[in-house]
């Protein structure tokens, strides 16, 4: 009999537990839910109830004359075995299945603990495969599915002006003046429009000591974007100060706040100096707010005082209006703008409108390569699954006697299948935990390697869709790799297995499925290896691409005039700046350009070649340069001459063309001395920001020379015709200087900045933080190629390791099973070489077959590689190299177990049984 005091104490504790637990499992919850949540408590309740019953019955028996001891024995016996009651209780509550599955899980976990090697390899294989898949999904989610944090981002469109087909460049963003913007934002298809001015500004009292990018937003920005500030406040309409003197306020972007203020929330309300004016920091924006080309700071549009005061626009469509309808509706208004300012628009243009996401996905090379990336991730997932399947099959064979025994004592087949499926799901969930951890690392890689391929709003973050995807991938893989081994293992030949336990000379198992799976894995690995080879070669090609110019050791400086100046003053200022830069320590030579940054050349200009019907009003690349441009960038002169410094000073309208120009427009006639007209140039009414030299009397330039082609339409496009004009004839609002330095340009930045000190007054002077080589390396094509090379390299490496481990464990496992056979063979006089060959023979055949299948698959995938991974190499020698590498690795995986098998000690092998 239970001592009463003890029972009371227990009952007090329990009532405390109950009152506590009732608070989170309401009494109206179904009894099985409560039982599940309070497994322990419910079981104790049931036990207490039974104790009460026994005591009460015993008391009656005592009253009827039995001795207390006898009474209790009989009372307990009448109720049956206490353990049965717990089970019946849970069965009554339909909890039995849950208990059994939980038992399966615990049994599976115990099994994994007993085989740590098996568990580690399986979890690692799954973790790597699930990790890459989850990472790919989080990148897609962050960059494509949910990239833009702005209100109604699916209705925000940007506008491109596109010239008729055949012109280059294909399109450029619409820019508007302030007056045009006021008309534009009230156009019928739009709810509203946001104007963004983008400019580099010098920070600090001494202008030019630090240069940052500023975006100037029209006063409606807060309502248009509706992204709250992280700290302080964003720009508000009153900051716009239409008419009234604007308050001097600035809002920091997240990246600038992190890098310059160490992520200190107290940065808000501090002051910054831009020129001599102090501005108050009123807020910090969140990381995904990067509108306006990912600037450092945001300022009200009223502060925008750039000489090119045109703004870019984003429009928000009215609900239900498609971009195409809106583009058609806005075209008449744009035609009016084009009539007022013909130089800003090409002839016969049309307007293309795309939502933010469309304009990303339609141009992004990353999005284009997604099918191939997803295919590879899928293959990797398959390889990881196969690895697990192989391990499970191998282990299933070892466990055959266990299952045979279970079946012999009456386990149903479904029960064994369930046990194995629960075990594989447990494995895959453990693998997915590892995979989710790894995916954090993997998912950050694309943004680190190739930030220019993604919208700047992209921030990789954990969220439910991503976690959900990871777990569903894990469940899928668990079922995928677990199902076949489970089915096989659940049908043991009981008698055969139980008898064969002691005689393993003849294998009772069929190794064919193992070999097929391993072969599949090898074939898929070969496919990944060839893709990796193609992308890596493609990246090498782009690194070694013949650019036609030398981007090494080029620093870039921008000098923009603060106020529009007459022609002579512009020439004098630019010339003095050029001389100052040339005299700076470490500078080798200096060139001046109108602003295009190789490998993207020139601005769109409509051109006529006098007396030529082909080049008649076509838009091509045009760039204003100083005569030293070709020497500094090391672009060789092929024919004729380049205008002289004196020609530049006088502004004589002379031009040089590239070879592509000659081939396209005048392949048979000499081009030298011919005239090109610029029909859009109106000498009486200069387009905004431009001044014409006195010598520029007619809008035409005489061609004096031909230079070699250099890449001018991005790294992944052929060279376009280009027209280089004497910069002195029509200097713009400033110039971009390319300074060739003796050493690393990074080391010369300070001296260059110093050399330009006299020009800070009245001008904007910016020494770009990146050299031309760095700008080249942030080109989307370059980054894309590097990214896919890195990604496929990683995928192939993972696949190779997984295949290696899989093959090794299978060969090792099979030769372990045949250990006593080998022992007997050696005892009977077989040589070590013979045993070695015995093990290797089958595997060599397997590797050869798998490699053949893999090569076939690679040939199939090649088309996809060509379409989705532009720029990767199609060189057939990659196939050969990949196959050779795979064969080598596979051989290595086989040799070691084979060697061990051939050194079996016959005595031990036979005695071990």
């Amino acid at each position, binding site marked *: 009999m239970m001592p009463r005091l003890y029972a009371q104490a227990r*009952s007090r504790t329990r009532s405390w537990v109950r009152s506590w637990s009732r608070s989170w499992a309401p009494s109206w919850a*179904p*009894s*099985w839910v409560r039982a599940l949540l309070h497994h322990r408590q419910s079981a104790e*309740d*049931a036990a*207490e*109830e*039974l104790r*009460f*019953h026994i*005591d*009460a*019955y015993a*008391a009656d028996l005592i009253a009827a004359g039995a001795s207390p001891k006898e009474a209790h024995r009989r009372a307990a016996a*009448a*109720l*049956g075995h206490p353990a*049965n*009651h717990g089970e*019946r*209780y849970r*069965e*009554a*509550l*339909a909890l039995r299945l849950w208990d059994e599955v939980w038992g399966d899980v615990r049994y599976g976990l115990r099994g994994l603990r007993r085989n740590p090697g098996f568990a580690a390899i399986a979890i690692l294989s799954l973790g790597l495969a699930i990790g890459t898949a989850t990472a790919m999904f989080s990148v897609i989610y962050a960059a494509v599915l949910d990239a833009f944090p702005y209100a109604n981002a699916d209705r925000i469109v940007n506008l491109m002006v596109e010239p008729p087909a055949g012109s280059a460049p294909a399109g450029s963003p619409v820019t508007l003046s302030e007056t045009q913007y006021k008309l534009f934002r009230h156009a019928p298809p739009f709810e509203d429009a946001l104007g963004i001015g983008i400019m580099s500004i010098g920070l600090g009292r001494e202008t030019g000591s630090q240069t940052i990018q500023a975006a100037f937003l029209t006063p409606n920005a807060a309502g248009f974007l509706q992204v709250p500030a992280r700290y302080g406040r964003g720009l508000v309409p009153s900051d716009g100060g239409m008419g009234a003197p604007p308050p001097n306020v600035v809002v920091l972007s997240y990246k600038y706040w992190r890098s310059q203020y160490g992520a200190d929330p107290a940065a808000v309300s501090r002051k910054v100096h831009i020129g001599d004016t102090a501005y108050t920091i009123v807020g910090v924006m969140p990381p995904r707010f990067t509108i306006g080309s990912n600037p450092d700071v945001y300022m009200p549009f009223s502060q925008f005082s750039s000489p090119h005061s045109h703004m870019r626009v984003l429009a928000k469509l009215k609900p239900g209006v498609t971009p195409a309808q809106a583009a058609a509706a806005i075209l008449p208004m744009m035609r009016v703008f084009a009539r007022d300012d013909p130089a800003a628009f090409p002839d016969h243009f049309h307007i293309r409108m795309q939502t933010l996401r469309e304009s990303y996905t339609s141009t992004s090379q990353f999005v284009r390569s997604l099918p191939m990336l997803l295919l590879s991730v899928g293959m990797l997932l398959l390889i990881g699954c196969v690895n697990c399947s192989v391990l499970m099959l191998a282990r299933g064979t070892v466990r055959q006697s266990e299952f045979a025994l279970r079946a012999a004592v009456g386990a149903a087949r479904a029960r064994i299948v369930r046990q194995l499926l629960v075990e594989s799901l447990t494995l895959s969930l453990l693998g997915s935990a590892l995979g989710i951890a790894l995916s954090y690392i993997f998912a950050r890689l694309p943004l680190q390697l190739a930030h220019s391929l993604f919208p700047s709003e992209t921030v990789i973050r954990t969220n439910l869709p991503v976690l959900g995807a990871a777990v569903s991938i894990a469940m899928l893989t668990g079922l995928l790799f677990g199902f076949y081994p489970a089915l096989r293992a659940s049908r043991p030949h009981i008698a055969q297995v139980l008898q064969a336990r002691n005689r393993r000379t003849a294998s009772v198992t069929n190794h064919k499925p193992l070999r097929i799976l391993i072969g599949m894995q090898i074939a898929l690995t070969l496919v990944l290896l060839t893709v990796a080879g193609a992308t890596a070669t493609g990246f090498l090609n782009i690194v070694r691409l013949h650019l036609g110019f030398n981007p090494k050791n080029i620093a870039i400086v921008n000098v923009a005039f603060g106020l529009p100046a007459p022609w002579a003053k512009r020439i004098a200022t630019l010339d003095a700046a050029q001389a100052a830069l040339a005299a700076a320590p470490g500078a080798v030579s200096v060139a001046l350009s109108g602003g295009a940054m190789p490998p993207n050349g020139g601005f769109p200009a409509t051109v006529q070649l006098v007396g030529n019907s082909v080049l008649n009003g076509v838009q091509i690349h045009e760039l204003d340069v100083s005569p030293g441009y070709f020497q500094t960038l090391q672009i060789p002169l092929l024919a004729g001459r380049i205008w002289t410094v004196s020609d530049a000073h006088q502004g004589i309208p002379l031009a040089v063309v590239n070879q592509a120009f000659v081939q396209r427009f005048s392949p048979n006639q000499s081009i030298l001395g011919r005239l090109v007209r610029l029909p859009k140039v109106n000498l009486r009414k200069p387009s905004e920001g431009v001044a014409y030299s006195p010598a520029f009397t007619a809008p035409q330039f005489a061609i004096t020379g031909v230079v070699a082609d250099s890449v001018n339409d991005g790294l992944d496009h052929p060279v376009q015709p280009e027209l280089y004009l004497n910069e002195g004839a029509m200097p713009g609002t400033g110039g971009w200087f390319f300074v060739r330095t003796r050493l690393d340009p990074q080391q010369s930045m300070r001296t260059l900045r110093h050399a330009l000190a006299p020009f800070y007054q009245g001008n904007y002077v910016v020494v770009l933080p990146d050299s031309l080589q760095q700008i080249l390396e942030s080109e989307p094509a370059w980054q894309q190629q590097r990214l896919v090379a890195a990604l496929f390299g990683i995928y192939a490496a993972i696949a190779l390791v997984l295949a290696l481990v899989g093959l090794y464990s299978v060969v090792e496992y099979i030769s372990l099973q045949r250990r006593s056979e080998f022992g007997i063979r050696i005892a009977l006089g077989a040589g070590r070489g013979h045993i070695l060959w015995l093990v290797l023979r089958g595997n060599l055949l397997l590797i050869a077959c798998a490699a053949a299948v893999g090569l076939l698959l690679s040939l199939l995938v090649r088309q996809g590689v060509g379409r989705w991974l532009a720029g990767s190499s199609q060189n057939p020698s990659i196939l050969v190299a990949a196959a050779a590498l795979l064969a080598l690795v596979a051989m290595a995986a086989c040799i070691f177990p084979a060697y061990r098998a051939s050194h079996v000690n016959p005595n031990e092998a036979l005695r071990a049984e």
Partner: protein
Amino acid sequence: MGKNPDLLYGTMNMLILKAVSLGPLHGYAVLLRIQQLAAGRLEIQQGTLYPALYRLEHQGLLKGKWGESENKRRARFYALTAAGRRELAAEQAKWEGMAELIAGILSARAPEGGAA
């Protein structure tokens, strides 16, 4: 009829519901009440009582609640819920119909002049 007839399958639930319908009872009292109602002619296997109680509670026909027994001990009392009351009525009607039917069959006599 012997002292311990086999309980017909499914009648246990009905007997429990009937016993409890007269007022909340703890498990042991349910047992005693059934035996009392059967005037000692029916002995219930004690081991089957509690699984039946758990099942009925799980099905929402009974509601279990901790209370104090006649000798001041904590005991779990079962009371009939509304669903339990309906179920009891339905079971009872079914049982009576069945009993009547079977009684009718058993009391039938061979028709006069029928083939031998």
